[in-house]
């Protein structure tokens, strides 16, 4: 998919060192970013993320420039429009996509994209945006910034894919008895926040009166129950004292659990995702490893986060390049049923 991946501290240094070619840029949110680089022969598209990962280190400032292989194609598109013009994806074996992480249209876009991809095609992706819970212009190409958009890179080379989160049920199962889009209004026919608060305050020493909601919700996401599969994690982001708003849509009457984690289990899950990704790759040689990890996992693990990256790296040869983003939502089609938009999850792509 990519020929060469490099890290740059500033956009200027990138502009100076590259000559021509097609690039994917992943920029950390604190990077000084005043104007889009313009250079003859330079084609690029990119997005802003809370942090970037390069060689087992995370950066709040700087950018990763990944030069596309000649067999890869790059598109920037409005996610409200049909994906049908993307004729190139019909013959692709792998796809990398970046979608505006705060857009409400993510699900429709991913559903539409899923219907078009070939049977054996694997997809990895990330939700772009800053760690502020506010939707901003975060996707761009060499011409301008794009709102409610997506970047789709398709390649004829196959990849390995692994998805794991490591969260375990704390309380439940519960019926999300009243839901509206991304808001859970009732759980077990009671106000959702009341049920959520009681469960967490009974099982932990944390108190909602003294601790900000998001500090607690990062540690206690909601998990959607699936038959014979792991939970699909949804992160609560806010409350009005009655309902809970989560990242991602929920169907009414979904069965959910309140999840919790042990730090070592999160790290172990990341390692398992890497092993899974490494094992189900079709190519013998590994060019590099792409990590799409949730920014909430970084905040929960805090100083131990470096251990998660080490655990991922452990699944590969020591010299293997590890790069990626800490994102606002992770995207993958780990199975054949559809493209999922995950939260608090670790997605590993073996390129």
């Amino acid at each position, binding site marked *: 998919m990519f020929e060469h991946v490099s890290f740059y501290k500033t956009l200027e240094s990138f502009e100076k060192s590259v000559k021509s070619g097609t690039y994917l840029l992943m920029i950390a949110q604190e990077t000084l970013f005043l104007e889009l680089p313009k250079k003859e022969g330079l084609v690029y598209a990119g997005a802003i993320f809370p942090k970037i990962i390069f060689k087992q280190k995370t950066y709040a400032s700087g950018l990763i420039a990944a030069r596309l292989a000649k067999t890869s194609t790059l598109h920037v598109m409005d996610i409200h429009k049909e994906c049908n013009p993307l004729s190139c994806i019909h013959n692709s074996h792998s796809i990398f996509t970046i979608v505006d992480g705060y857009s409400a249209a993510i699900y429709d876009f991913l559903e539409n994209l899923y219907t078009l*991809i070939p*049977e054996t095609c694997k997809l990895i992706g990330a939700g772009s945006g800053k760690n502020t819970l506010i939707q901003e212009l975060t996707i761009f190409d060499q011409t301008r910034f794009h709102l409610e958009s997506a970047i789709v890179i398709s390649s004829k080379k196959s990849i390995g894919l692994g998805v794991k989160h490591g969260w375990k049920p704390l309380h439940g199962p519960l019926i999300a008895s009243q839901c509206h889009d991304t808001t859970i209004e009732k759980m077990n026919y009671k106000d959702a926040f009341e049920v959520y608060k009681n469960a967490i305050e009974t099982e932990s020493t944390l108190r909602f009166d003294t601790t900000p909601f998001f500090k607690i919700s990062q540690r206690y996401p909601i998990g959607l129950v699936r038959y014979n599969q792991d939970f699909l994690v949804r992160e609560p982001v806010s409350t009005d004292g009655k309902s809970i708003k989560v990242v991602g849509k929920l169907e009414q009457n979904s069965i959910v659990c309140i999840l919790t984690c042990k730090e070592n289990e999160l790290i172990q899950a990341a390692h398992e995702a890497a092993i899974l990704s490494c094992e189900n790759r079709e190519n013998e040689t590994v060019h590099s490893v792409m990590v799409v990890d949730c920014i909430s996992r970084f905040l929960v693990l805090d100083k131990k986060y470096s251990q998660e990256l080490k655990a991922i790296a452990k699944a590969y040869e020591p010299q293997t390049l590890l790069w990626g983003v800490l994102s606002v939502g992770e995207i993958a089609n780990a199975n054949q049923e559809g493209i999922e938009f995950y939260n608090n999850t670790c997605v590993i792509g073996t390129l």
Partner: protein
Amino acid sequence: MRHLNEQLFIAFECISAIGSSLDLKIMVEQFQKVFARKTGALASIYWYYDERQHTYTQLSFQGKKAFLPLFKTPKTCIPCPILSLDETKTKNLLHVKIDEDWMVFLFHAPYTEIELIKNMLESFKEKLENAVHGCKNHSELIGINQKLERLIQEEVAKNREKDQHILQQSRLAQMGEMISMIAHQWRQPLSSISTVAASLKLKLSLNRFDYTTKEQEEANKLFLQESMNKIESYVRFLTHTIDDFRNFFKPNKQKESITLSQLVNRTLGIIGKALEVNGITLHVQTNTTHEVLTYANEMMQVILNILKNAEDIIKEREVKNPQIHITLSSDKTWQIITIEDNAGGIKEEILPHIFAPYFSTKTDKNGTGLGLYMSKTIVEEHCGGQIMASNGAYGALFTIKLKEDATP
């Protein structure tokens, strides 16, 4: 135990997705989406059976389009196997018959697991069938309603056309009546003009105009002067009458202040002579001199209509000593006109219907049944008043109430 719990949860979510909409496509899509997500189905399709054509058409498809060729259109004569392998022999197709339709799911999972899923689906198949029936019935009802709506619109259009036709007829009848009234009004002045002209002609033929003396010459001049004055006076009357008729037909969009007495007198200027010719005695009693602000021509049309109806029934029933009493009075709120004839009244059973459109008792006399309906519309909707009918001591009694400023 965990497995059983999971099955229960999945069943609950799938059952919750059944009947989420009365639109069959939306309902089926929602169910397919939830069921596929929960059970790991790779794709699913819903084949809708067309009873008229005896063929299956694809109503909805969920999943990668790449899987679409694996779903074969069902045949009406051969029932689909519940479980079968696809062409590549790597995936399983689970067929579920819903009424005459088929829902098919594609799985890539061990046979035992698909067997479990099949059993789960069988457990709520009846509910799914009921929901599908509900959607189809709803769609049929919508179709019937739309057809009914279309029929109603067509009938309303036909009725409007009929109304136009009847109104046209009514106008022609009204004009015919007007011509008859003009004839009555003009008969006397024309006959007088004729008399004056005949006497002049006779005198001329008999050489009665003697100019031999100055006195005789003066007398002849005086005679001619008087005759010309008479003719002029009759012509003025004729002109005045024709102006009255013309004004009556002129559309009047401006309200004017007018007393009830003036309204009645103007109306009698049109119909009075006709009533007189038919030997009907008119009694007008005026107890009010207040003015009302109203559409005078339209109110005259109402009074004229009631008087004409009275005239018709008096003639029909051959009433002896026929009379019409018009009383003009007022109370705190209203200026009131009552018109009562002595033709025996309106039958009690038809009294509640006389203001209804197309209601007429004049079946043999070109009655349109619109006169009183239009009178009620004019008084109540246009002039902000009231019109009522009842039976008085001797005949039909019509009461028209108008406010001084008759704003509707």
